[in-house]
């Protein structure tokens, strides 16, 4: 048993911290206020090989392990949670399934340029009436010769407005339920692929998401990812990894909130002394710091199991559940430490609360995580 980071893991941490300090922290509030897509930051992520962290080098990625990925996600999200989720979607939800289930030919077209950051990917599972319950989806793909004709819609697709391709989930056999789901790789410039305006969200405002519609959209059969009917397996395996990304994002947001609270509590005085000398503030800080460390260990534990190639659904779900709920608690306490200033847009505390809130919802709500965890716990 060894809790030390490797030299490479430390180096990634240092690199991402430096990037966050220089390019993300100074801009995050502005991007949030203006709902500006962080174009330069995403370009820089590509230069730093952070858009395909765990993808093998021969497929355009950095070829690093998932602990590196978790570390990078935490540091980037500490600087800007929106940039964090853009990165997470490209890494975990797009590149990871293409890397795991794609053919060599598919990898040339749909992985290399995305892992290297030349292009951006997104993941289309959620629909207006199907979120965590994947089998309820209504997007339909029907075979016509060498092609499939796809009709339907998806929503809340992060990176959707900017993406060059999507891992798209469809129903190819309604009667078969989960076994009737098929995943496709679809370039977003395919005729019949229509994107709506970006969603107006409470937080992570600089990470654009949108609804999309497919009208008689024709996709070659060779673009099926995995096999026909294997879509559910592709989706679940992808989400096991995606949850590590979002848990790391939550961790980064929580750390930013704690650090702000610590700083502010040293400056702001009440009753003749800095507020951090009051025990009530100290105790809040202590709980925040402890819960952040607890969450990080859960996240790294899940990442280590993913690197070993063993089943990690339960560990990913525990990391995601705990880290996301922790991030909301910590961000709220940090806002409280700031008092009235915490409610003002002049400081970052309120943004952290808004950004943290989504982590309890996307990539499987807390309720879905509890279903996954209890199913594993009670199965034998």
């Amino acid at each position, binding site marked *: *048993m*060894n*809790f030390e980071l490797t030299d490479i893991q430390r180096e990634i941490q240092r690199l991402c911290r430096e990037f966050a300090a220089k390019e993300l922290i100074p801009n995050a509030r502005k991007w949030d206020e203006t709902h500006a897509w962080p174009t330069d930051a995403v370009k820089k992520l590509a230069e730093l090989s952070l858009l395909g962290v765990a993808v093998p080098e021969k497929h355009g990625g950095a070829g690093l392990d998932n602990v590196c990925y978790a570390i990078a996600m935490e540091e980037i999200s500490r600087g800007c949670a929106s940039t964090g989720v853009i990165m997470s979607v490209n890494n975990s939800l797009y590149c990871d399934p293409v890397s795991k289930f794609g053919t060599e030919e598919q990898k040339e077209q749909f992985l290399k340029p995305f892992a290297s950051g030349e292009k951006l990917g997104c993941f289309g599972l959620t629909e207006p009436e199907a979120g965590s319950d994947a089998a309820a989806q209504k997007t339909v793909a029907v075979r016509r010769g060498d092609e499939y004709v796809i009709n339907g819609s998806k929503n809340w697709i992060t990176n959707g407005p900017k993406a060059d391709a999507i891992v798209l989930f469809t129903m190819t056999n309604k009667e078969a339920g989960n076994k009737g789901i098929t995943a496709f790789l679809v370039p977003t410039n395919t005729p019949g692929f229509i994107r709506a305006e970006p969603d107006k969200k409470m937080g992570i405002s600089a990470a654009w998401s949108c609804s999309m519609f497919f009208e008689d959209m024709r996709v070659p059969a060779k673009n099926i990812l995995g096999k026909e009917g294997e879509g559910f397996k592709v989706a679940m395996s992808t989400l096991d990894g995606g949850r590590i990304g979002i848990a790391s994002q939550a961790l980064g947001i929580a750390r930013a909130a704690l650090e702000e609270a610590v700083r502010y509590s040293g400056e702001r005085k009440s009753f003749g002394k800095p507020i951090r000398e009051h025990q009530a503030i*100290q105790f809040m800080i202590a709980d925040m710091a402890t819960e952040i460390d607890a969450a990080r260990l859960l996240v790294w534990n899940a990442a280590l199991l993913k690197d070993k190639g063993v089943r990690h659904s339960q560990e990913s779900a525990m990391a995601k559940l705990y880290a996301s709920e922790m991030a909301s608690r910590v961000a709220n306490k940090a806002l409280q430490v700031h008092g009235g200033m915490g409610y003002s847009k002049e400081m970052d505390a309120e943004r952290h609360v808004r950004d943290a809130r989504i982590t309890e919802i996307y990539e499987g709500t807390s309720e879905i995580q509890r279903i996954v965890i209890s199913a594993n*716990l009670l199965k034998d």
Partner: protein
Amino acid sequence: MNLELTETQTLIRDTARKFARERVAPQARAMDREERFPTELFRELAELGLLGVNLPSKYGGAEAGVVAYALAMMEMAAADASVSVAMAVTNMCAELIHAFGTDAQREKYVTRLTLGEAVVGSFALSEPHAGSDPGALLTSAVKRGDRYVLNGSKQWITSGAHAGVMVVWARTSGTGNKGLSCFIVEGGTKGLHIGRHEDKMGLRASNTVALTFEDCEVPAENLLGKEGDGFKLAMTALDGGRIGIAAQACGVARAAMEATVSYTKDRKAFGEAVAEFQAPRFMMADMKTQLSAAELLTLRAAYLKEQKQPFTREASMAKLFASETSNRVCDKAVQLHGGYGYIDEFPVERYFRDARVQTIYEGTSEVQRLVIARETFRLIG
């Protein structure tokens, strides 16, 4: 980073698990009811190396490290928290004497503890008016020739009536944290009186007594460290002790969770097993998640101590998080057992009572939060 156990760690865990399940667990309920301290079990624990897990084999230890110690504590606590606390205190006394003792002290006393000749060890720091704040303690030690004469009283002393070797804190000069010294005192020394046995809510098979020192003479060679080192020794021991109690909390919480998983699968309500309903499942998901986090925090603190790196902050985090978690988990375990959770036919009411002290002893949750806040301000600034 690699969280797989080494062969030694696996061996110690499995040894502790087997002993805990076969020898300890079957007696746990009776020992609790009868407030019976199981003297005979400690001989066997010593034979398995579990009274000196992190001590060199030269001094009778298993030489298996701190992570292995934490794993062994988790297993023992899952069977019986009372046995585990006596085991923890004995390990802690042996480690303290080994860390600060002279060769002669090590030869004589560490071995007595690890081999079970002392039955168990006791750690006598707390007094009626000095717990988390040792600087307030009043027991005095005055040097007379080649002896120290101890006078005063101690409270909440675990295993006090059974310990063959004790470490005792007393004031040799001054006030506050300075002027405290630590002594090795043998059980049965003249002038050492065993006081009232505390009637406790939980840990009922653990012996907790008050001690009175009345002109109790201790050879000068039994001073541990130097005069005035007492505070440093206490803090060092407590940092390590917190890992032990965190591990105990993890063990009790795991037992409560496992009992709940098994009960909710058997018990039916509205025609279905309780485990099929979402509300109980969600409670169990939270129990499992928090327990996993507590175990990782505990093993991390143990790892840092083993590597001789600073671990004060991490030990406090582990102790705080694990003890609060075990109380929540045991509370939910009682809830999910319904009425059966409240009677002693089932073990969860004992787990609940045993868990309650974990947020109190070896530094209350409040003391842990002070430590963590201080360290956080130091790190983040």
